[in-house]
């Protein structure tokens, strides 16, 4: 065997930090007695998970962009909006497939739509990075101002192209309706959203732990200077991460639009607040924390929306305050910050 592989770890075992992972389970379990009916609770929980996965897709890029380059990108919502509109544009010519009641035929419409949404969002992300982000590296206030400005410009451009009205976007035929499992109605589309979200999460984790680029990203989040001192051009890496993050935001936007069955440019601004709450809860720079944060935010919003609709408006902020009181740097703080 080679010298590289033959040796093993002999350090004292690390205490794994499981509390953040248990948190969504605790929240779900705690909500059950209040909701009362098990079938309603199941429906709410699945809805929360689906929503969480979509929010995760939208936020994951943002947390890496901040972690890697300290860039506060308040324009990230623009990519969500772009993804949502692309769902409309790309699905239109594929409508025949979308109207079929065969799920496989629906996928013939959905998969290319998702790929187009991601590709265009990535391209928009590239342009956005060059035009708005690159000139203000290392200057937080300017980043906030200019990226927010970028979001407004993007929103207005979408209005100019597609008009200010809400555009309906029906879910493909075979994905409409619900399964009935033990009296609980589970919307098919939500199941798909959960599956897609899990695929994104697993793929991201694999990329970050098994590939050289992933290692570089994690190393860069921890110590940017040292990555450069090893001879890697972190600005190029950053552009790549920015584009990948934009692509995921576009995917999330497309899924969200289909979930709500309508598209409007204001989706970008709406999701922006939510994604920031998620990445702060998760710990800036942490993909795992972002995943748990997204699920927590969505579950809380769903339970609160059912139990006390008025409180639902502030449930995200309340959740963030509680988490930060417990862990001021988020669930999984990245070591060097």
């Amino acid at each position, binding site marked *: 065997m080679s010298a590289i592989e033959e040796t093993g*770890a002999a350090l004292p075992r690390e205490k794994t930090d499981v509390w953040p992972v248990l948190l969504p389970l605790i929240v779900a379990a705690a909500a059950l007695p209040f909701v009362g009916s098990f079938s309603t609770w199941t429906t709410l929980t699945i809805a929360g998970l689906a929503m969480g996965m979509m929010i995760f897709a939208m936020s994951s890029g943002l947390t890496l962009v901040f972690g890697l380059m300290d860039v506060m990108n308040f324009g990230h919502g623009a990519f969500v909006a772009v993804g949502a509109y692309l769902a409309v544009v790309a699905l239109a010519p594929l409508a025949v497939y979308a109207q079929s009641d065969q799920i496989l035929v629906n996928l013939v419409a959905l998969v290319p739509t998702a790929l187009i949404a991601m590709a265009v969002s990535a391209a928009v992300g590239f342009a956005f990075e060059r035009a708005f982000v690159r000139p203000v590296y290392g200057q937080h206030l300017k980043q906030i101002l200019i990226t927010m400005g970028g979001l407004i410009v993007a929103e207005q451009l979408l209005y100019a192209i597609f008009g200010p009205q809400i555009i309906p976007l029906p879910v493909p035929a075979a994905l409409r309706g619900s399964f009935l499992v033990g009296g609980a109605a589970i919307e098919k589309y939500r199941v798909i959203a959960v599956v897609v979200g899990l695929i994104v999460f697993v793929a991201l984790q694999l990329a970050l732990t098994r590939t050289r680029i992933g290692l570089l990203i994690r190393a860069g989040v921890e110590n940017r200077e*040292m990555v450069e001192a090893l001879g890697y051009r972190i600005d190029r890496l950053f552009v790549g991460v920015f584009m990948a993050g934009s692509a995921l935001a576009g995917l999330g936007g497309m899924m969200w639009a289909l979930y709500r069955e309508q598209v409007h440019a204001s989706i970008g601004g709406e999701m922006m607040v939510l994604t920031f709450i998620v990445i702060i809860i998760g710990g800036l720079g942490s993909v795992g924390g972002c995943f748990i944060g997204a699920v927590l935010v969505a579950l809380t919003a769903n339970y609160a929306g059912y139990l006390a609709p008025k409180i639902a408006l502030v449930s995200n902020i309340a959740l963030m305050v509680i988490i930060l009181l417990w862990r001021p740097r988020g669930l999984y703080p990245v070591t060097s910050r």
Partner: protein
Amino acid sequence: MSEALLTLSGVHTHIGRYHILHGVDLVALRGRTTMLLGRNGAGKTTTLRTIMGLWRASAGAVNFAGASIDRSATPDIARAGVAYVPENMGVFGDLTVKENMVLAARAGALDEQRLAWIFGFFPALRKFWLSRAGLLSGGQKQMLAIARAIAEDHKLLLIDEPTKGLAPAIVGALIEALTDLRRAGATIVLVEQNFRVAQDIGDDVYVMESGKIVHSGAMDALAADDELQRRLLGLNLDSHQ
């Protein structure tokens, strides 16, 4: 006399509105270990960071292997053949020891032979190969930081205070490793506060004071001159034994 690999001439560095380096002149000769000594705040770390391109020289020239590098970006300086071990070691704590080394071997796969050679210096790294580097002790992290710098062939090693805060036994192992490296032909610029360490491994020595070089010469000569040491560094050997 061997040829100069690295030459700093009249280098000034500003950090924000602070003027840290006031015209540093320094030559590191190929195949030799050049010590950079001086009190805290004298500008030793800033000098290394300026060479590495992490601070930009506001005036003066830095030449490395025949090319000017004072306007180059850090990754390009690294690619030109300079390896850097910062004062805080810069170990990626979230990554395993192996992953740290994989990233250090930028040009491609880790070379088995070289790895065996590195493990020879730092056996602990083999033992903890698959552990998260953040769990290593301070001394082990320092070993990893140096191992990373020698994972590939570099023309020059810049090492900032490797013995800082380490237990005496580990300092001994480090001195041995650095001496072996020198014997293997490495060119090293080493910042060190511990005069005994400096004396053991240095060939040439520069002493800094308030952002300037105030003494340069052979390490042996400084080591033999208690009076000079007292004047330059405010210490003599006896007080450190």
